[in-house]
């Protein structure tokens, strides 16, 4: 047993308990946020110390501790850090259960970290459930009609997708007799080509896995829950869902499909599935975003569209040879850039909406005057989401599309770039009301210091990854290279 390799995860679990207990003892609730933040910092520090080492998997190969896993762990911890920063003012809305709120955020993060590390179907499933259940509770924290409805939708669809996933896993297990990903790959490789082509059970199992994970990353046709849940959930949790949950889904997909279904014939198949899904997902996400009047719903559809761009990377992954890391690293880089961008946008939304008490885009009119710095940061993030330089979103798209073109997916890239243009229309609408509209009242919209700090961090990240992406890409490549399972 190498329990010390689990310290980052154990830290979060322990601190989650500490936060709940402290909640009953301490009157000053801000302390809870500080405790949670320190848990994240400790966990990140330990993870960082493990970076670069080529450590074998633990728990009889159920959890990997490769750089790929550590990259995602750090990403999730960073996201959780910004989300908690963004929550500090927001949680004042909740009279009770502030401790539970922070504890659940920590537990959801723990679940995602395990998802990224899981190298076995069983551990994947357990980690996925831990994440889903924590998020579900978080979604209904506002306890009003919308929030409860959102949570109910989320839990029903999460249960449904879990069932589909389990069914897929059962089929894969039935075909190969293994649950460990690399052993599944070996078992498939041992089967002669002719048998493989005639085995609908394995292909069906694979498709069901795509469906199950598709729910996590909000790919069409499993995106139905997104707008309602995004609208109903507390805004920091919406931010968390839109970046961390999606990133965790992609982490699992990359590992499962790369490690278990790396077989040439199979990967050609799932590559086509992902390519088609990518095209449909981004188109539906972008078109449906156009008529939205609620900013959280708009970002819901926007996150569907972004999942579409990311799936271009998955399609590339299936075509690329195993030694070609660009397919994987471009997804990692995109996820990082997207995390900064979307978190920045959501922190700005929290800063504005909290004061206005409204999520309607029309109420953002004149924000350029009323809250210039917040509006500027939100504008930067929107530009990044469109994919206009010098923001990170442009570099992320450039990188992911470059690798796609390199592997013969020019048609998909053309669809994707045209989609980016469509997306400009609705993203710019927000920019337009903020800067061009006459403010309804001259009153300034102040924001707290923590929100400004979070916003500053996110905006710096967006600019840094956009102007000097070299080191970010190198990190992503490094994480994608050492890939043990």
């Amino acid at each position: 047993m190498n329990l010390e390799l689990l310290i980052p995860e154990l830290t979060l679990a322990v601190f989650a308990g500490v936060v709940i207990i402290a909640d009953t003892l301490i009157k000053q609730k801000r302390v809870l946020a500080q405790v949670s933040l320190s848990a994240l910092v400790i966990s990140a520090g330990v993870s960082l110390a493990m970076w670069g080492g080529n450590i074998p998997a633990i728990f009889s190969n159920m959890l990997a501790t490769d750089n790929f896993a550590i990259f995602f762990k750090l990403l999730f911890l960073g996201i959780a850090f910004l989300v908690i920063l963004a929550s500090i003012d927001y949680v004042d809305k909740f009279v009770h259960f502030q401790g539970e709120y922070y504890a659940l955020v920590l537990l959801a993060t723990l679940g995602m970290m395990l998802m990224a590390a899981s190298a076995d179907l069983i551990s994947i499933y357990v980690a996925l459930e831990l994440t889903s259940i924590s998020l579900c509770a978080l979604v209904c924290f506002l306890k009003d009609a919308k929030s409860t409805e959102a949570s109910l939708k989320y839990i029903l669809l999460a249960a449904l997708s879990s069932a589909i996933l389990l069914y897929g896993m059962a089929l894969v297990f039935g075909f190969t007799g293994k649950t460990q990903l690399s052993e599944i790959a070996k078992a498939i490789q041992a089967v002669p080509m002719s048998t493989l082509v005639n085995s609908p059970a394995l292909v069906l199992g694979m498709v069901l896995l795509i469906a199950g994970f598709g729910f996590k990353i909000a790919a069409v046709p499993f995106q139905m829950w997104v707008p309602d849940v995004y609208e109903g959930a507390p805004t920091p949790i919406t931010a968390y869902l839109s970046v961390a949950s999606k990133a965790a889904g992609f982490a699992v997909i990359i590992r499962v499909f790369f490690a278990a279904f790396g077989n040439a014939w199979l990967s050609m198949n799932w590559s086509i599935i992902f390519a088609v899904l990518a095209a449909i997902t981004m188109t539906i996400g972008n078109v449906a975003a156009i008529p939205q009047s609620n900013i959280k719903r708009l970002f819901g559809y926007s996150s569907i569209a972004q999942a579409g761009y990311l799936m271009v990377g998955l399609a590339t992954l299936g075509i690329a040879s195993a030694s070609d890391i660009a397919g994987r690293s471009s997804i990692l880089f995109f996820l990082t850039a997207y995390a900064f961008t979307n978190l920045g946008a959501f922190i700005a939304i929290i800063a504005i909406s909290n004061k206005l008490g409204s999520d309607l885009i029309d109420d953002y009119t004149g924000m350029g005057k009323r809250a210039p710095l917040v509006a500027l940061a939100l504008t930067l993030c929107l530009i990044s989401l469109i994919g206009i330089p010098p923001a990170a979103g442009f570099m992320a798209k450039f990188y992911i599309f470059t690798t796609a073109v390199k592997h013969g997916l020019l048609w998909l890239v053309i669809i994707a770039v045209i989609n980016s243009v469509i997306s400009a229309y609705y993203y710019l609408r927000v920019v337009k009301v903020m800067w061009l509209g006459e403010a309804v009242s001259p009153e300034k919209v102040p924001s707290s210091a923590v929100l400004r700090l979070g916003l500053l961090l996110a905006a710096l990240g967006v600019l840094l990854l956009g102007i000097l992406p070299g080191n970010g890409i190198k990190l992503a490549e490094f994480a994608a290279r050492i890939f043990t399972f």
Partner: protein
Amino acid sequence: MGYLSWILFLPIVGAFLIAFVVGKRENVIRGTAAVFTFITFVLAAVVFATFDRSPAAAGLFQFEEKVLWIAPLKAYYHLGVDGLSLPMMLLTTFLGFLSVLISWKIHLRPREYFAWLLLLETSILGVFVSLDLLLFFIFWEIEVIPMYFLISIWGAGRKEYSATKYVVYTLFGSAFMLAGILSLYFATGSLSMVDITTKGLGMVQSVMRPAPIFFLILTAFAVKLPVFPLHTWLPDAHTDAPTAASVMLAGVLIKMGGYGMIRVVSFFPDVARQYALILVVLAIIGVLYGAAVTMRQTDFKRLIAYSSISHMGYVLLGIFALGKVSLVGASLQMVSHGLVTGLLFAMVGLVMHNAHERDLRNLGGLARQVPVITVVFSIAGLASLGLPTTSGFAAEFITFIGSYTSTAVPGIQFYTILGVLGVVVTAGYILWMLQRVFYGPVLEKYNEVKDADALEKVYMFALVAVIMLVGIYPAVVTDVLKLGISPIVKLLGG
């Protein structure tokens, strides 16, 4: 840091200072903008003066700066100027400085205004001096943002509609360009414009055919130039933009399209030859259709806007006639049009500002009340219709001679003659416009209209002087242009 980096980033430093540091006083804001754009212009002039014009320098990029920027993508921060980009760079800094002077009377949100204006200058300069395709594309894209804000906040008329239309057209064009650049990158394994030009398609490592890549990239430039039928954003954007933005738009921004076309021709000389006829036909349609529509305009500013479509048709004709002289003519036409139309838009803005009227049917007889404006406007108009001793004449004459004598495109003589007809129509609408605005019976309601003040005279006379200089001694520009064009013509087999 070399000269080019300073030139490129000084305006952005100015923009940053204006936005966040210098405070709210209008004088300080305007002063900062003027100082920064002026230093930029001086530096560009120094580069222009010290540029090596010896024949041995033909095709070489000077003032090069090359630093590895994104190692995994093999992208470089690579700047440099050759004979083609140098005049465009100088023109941009010149108009960039003048547009600050032109904007002197902006009182609405001046901080944001000047910050965007300076950012715009940087992005246009970046397009002209970048030698790395990724860097080029980034500057190409950034330009959209300041222009969007400039039109939609400080514009007039249907400003938000025009701004959005402009953005959507540009982004659609760049979407195709991005796909093209990615294909080119994949095909050649390089993002360096120099390598792709000099090594040509010998670098191609793939089976990807060059023609689709050529057209993917060309689409973006065709939108920007604009080429019929992708031109419909132009009249809206030019008309509704504030004066200085119109000057930058018509003066240098649409030249990015022509400049890009010449570069892409040098990437794919064979493809360019093969499809040149189609583009020549589109050019002639643009010239004649643009001129005909211009004739019918009743809005002062819209008239000038439409005339650009016709004039950019000459540029397209000159480029795709693919001859040495015609390419020099097209490039000179870009410079000349930048100066002349820049001046025209500045003058239109002045008349509109002082007389509060832009409908040609209501204007008239202003020559008595505003003699200085009338004289300068007439010079600009005559330059636009190509009167000898103005830059317009030199540019159009060289373009037509070059196109007529070009051997690369069959039947080019016929199309050139059709194109020359455009000049006649141009003379018609320019003279008619001058007559409707400045001559005829003096109207009493314009008695109070002020003539140009000292500051306005500065930029007017500066532009007039340069227009005359290029008209009388075009070699000041063409000597440089030839150095950039001759290697491209060699690639074309001429």
